[in-house]
């Protein structure tokens, strides 16, 4: 672990984003547009209040997954990763640098989307806004960590983009948003139990329904955080200094 390398990497990734205005705009605007569209589609029904908060967690998850998987793939294909691996930087320093930069971005993204949902679109949640924001940021970080990991298995941008439906959509189908998890058959329920997005959505649901911050939320958040650490660890294991 080398803090200097981690911070330098985070600064560098943020500098790259700063030069890429369109990506930055898309990252901030797309979740807002989607959440606004959702509020509009379900205007006059209670549906927005029920699924609004969980989707505030899902959108950043999806967007961050895509952005990071392509960003790290580019690092692999451009030769910059190979150069870095000949330098005194640890694999974990490199990944944590990315995590820090995209995590900071996730805070901004989730704040903007949550702020819009709560204060403009009138999303009604029983729990505190800071908890909603915490869950949304953690979901975004989860998407980022999974994106970092799967980018190791993609040889091209075409493949990396295909991992989105492969990794993200099954989690979306089974996370309890479409069908409550307790109503699923045993097989599907067991699968949904091991998918991290299920816990992210459970946490969001608790925030929606309960005014007090219960132990359940912390347990769910702990599971999501554990999945982030696991994905980052696996990602570090896929970075090999020596290749064929």
């Amino acid at each position, binding site marked *: 672990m080398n803090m*200097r*390398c981690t911070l*330098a*990497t985070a*600064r*560098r990734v943020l*500098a*790259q984003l700063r*030069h*890429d205005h369109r990506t930055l705009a898309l990252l901030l605007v797309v979740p807002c547009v989607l959440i606004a569209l959702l509020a509009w589609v379900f205007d006059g029904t209670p549906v927005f209040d029920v699924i609004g908060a969980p989707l505030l967690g899902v959108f950043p998850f999806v967007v961050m997954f895509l952005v990071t998987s392509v960003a790290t793939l580019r690092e692999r294909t*451009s*030769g*910059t990763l*190979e*150069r*870095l*691996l*000949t*330098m*005194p*930087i640890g694999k974990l320093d490199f990944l944590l640098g990315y995590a820090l930069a995209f995590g900071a971005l996730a805070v901004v993204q989730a704040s903007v989307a949550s702020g819009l949902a709560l204060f403009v679109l009138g999303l009604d949640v029983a729990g505190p806004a800071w908890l909603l924001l915490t869950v949304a940021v953690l979901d975004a970080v989860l998407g980022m960590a999974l994106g970092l990991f799967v980018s190791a298995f993609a040889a091209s941008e075409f493949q990396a983009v295909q991992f989105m439906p492969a990794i993200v959509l099954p989690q979306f189908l089974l996370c309890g948003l479409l069908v409550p998890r307790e109503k699923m058959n045993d097989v599907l329920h067991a699968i949904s139990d091991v998918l991290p997005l299920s816990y992210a959505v459970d946490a969001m649901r608790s925030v929606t329904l309960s005014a007090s911050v219960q132990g359940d939320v912390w347990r769910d958040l702990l599971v999501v955080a554990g999945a982030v650490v696991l994905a980052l660890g696996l990602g570090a294991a896929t970075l090999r*200094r*020596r*290749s*064929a």
Partner: protein
Amino acid sequence: MMNNSIAAIAVDGLRVVRGSRTVLDGLSFEVRRGSVTGLLGPSGSGKTTVMRAIVGVQKIAGGGVEVLGHPAGSSPLRSRVGYVTQAPSVYADLTVAENLRYFAAVLGAPSGDVGRVVGEVGLEEYVDSLIASLSGGQRARVSLAAALLGTPELLVLDEPTVGLDPVLRRDLWRLFHELAGAGTTLLISSHVMDEAVRCDRLLLLRDGRLLADDEPTALLAQTGTADVEAAFLALVEGESRNTTTVEVTS
């Protein structure tokens, strides 16, 4: 043992296999400290693979590579060896200064280093330009500048002068010799044989095997040729004659 303490690079029986193909087959050579050594050979001869093995990013099937007295790629070497890949490996969406500042931070190089290396490759007026807006040759020089950060003891440069205009090529070779004069060891690959005369020593590589390991003048004298291209051809022809003889006698 004595030899090892003098050599910047000691390659011993290096074998690299990629898929079913043997890319390098028992390669052995040494590179003297403070020298400019040219690694020459046609495209596909294994030059890049040799260089990757020396910087420690190549999986090897046999043999060993020692760099500055340590196993190639081991952690004490990571701030002492500079490597320039054939394709410029810098971030296209950052400026020259941002790229160099990042690599300098990773290397823990002194703060004045970015300005120094920009001057050494002659890119002062492009410091704040995005890499994406630079020409191929300029990008290659940024990539070279990044390898000069922290003043490494060994520079491994994979075709650093390809596509550069003659004036720039001359300036870079002058820089390489200045660095060697200050004690840096340089291993420079090229498929342009006329760059060979600028090296102190030559390694001629073909199909993953060394054809020659000699000084340029000695190589020309031995083959009775006027330039390295002709010497290369003479060596290849001499080798195939030898092979034929072996086949006939066996």
